[in-house]
């Protein structure tokens, strides 16, 4: 098992590359989900009478 994680002595390279990729995948899923949820929430609030002040700006990312 430890042989598997050491990757022939190059474990640091292999696992950091896979770790970064996994991180990017998780960020993509999380960012898309939270953006959709927030925009749906804002749309639901839009049906109600307009509150005072400016609506928060929705970011690009």
């Amino acid at each position, binding site marked *: 098992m430890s042989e*598997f994680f050491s*990757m*022939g002595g*190059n474990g640091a*390279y*292999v696992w*950091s*590359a*896979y770790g*970064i*990729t996994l991180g*990017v*995948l998780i*960020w*993509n*899923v999380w*960012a*898309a*989900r939270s*953006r*959709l949820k*927030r*925009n*749906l929430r*804002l*749309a*639901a609030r*839009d*049906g109600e009478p307009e509150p005072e002040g400016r609506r928060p700006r*929705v970011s*690009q*990312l």
Partner: protein
Amino acid sequence: MKLPIWFHRFGSPPYVYGLANTLAPWLAGIALILLAVGGFWGLVIAPTERTQGEVYRILYIHPQTAYISMMAYTVMAVAAGIGFIWRIKLAHAVAVSAAPIGASFTFCALATGAIWGRPTWGTYWEWGDPRLMFELLLLFLYLGYLALRAAFDDRDKADRVSAVLAVVGIVNVPIIHYSVLWWNTLHQGPTISRLGSPAMDTSMLIPFLIMVAGFTALFFWILLRRLQAEIVEREHGTRWLQSLVREGAA
């Protein structure tokens, strides 16, 4: 030029929102299964490479993320071009949705490439290497596109101006692809798309292609979810959206 009638349905926000909502869970399932199977196959089952040893296993993520970074740009540029020429707002929404995904995968390709470069080339980064430089330019094109959009308060104007940048920048995609053939570079040449027989053993080619398919499914899954978010933002106050969120709340 006239577009076929069926195409106009794809200009209807409620239709596209519903379609995305139906397709996204399927793509999510396919992506997660393929990435899990391909990842396990590549890390555990696939044999050790003769010259590189175990570190070659980055092969199952690095080319795939680089391919997504270029495919996402192509989707973005084509959508932006369609939006610009035929004034289809949903096409612009697709372009905006592809940009952050593409940017994140470009970053990932650069990072995993640098990590792979250290044990195999002896360096993380080589300034002036064509393949590396044009991939870095791709990241700047994505960031420039997003920054340019953020500079406009008027969405229609942001759509049209950023579309020009997206379309002009597409020339970079074939340059990245052919850079390894046109110039001397540390980066190795094409392995899979080489005509005739691909220079990879089947035991490595299968998990490689499973990962390609997995990342592709993931890209379209995220693209659809981001497109839904974009449609909701752009359709504020429309009757169909109000009834949709009321149904959702009930």
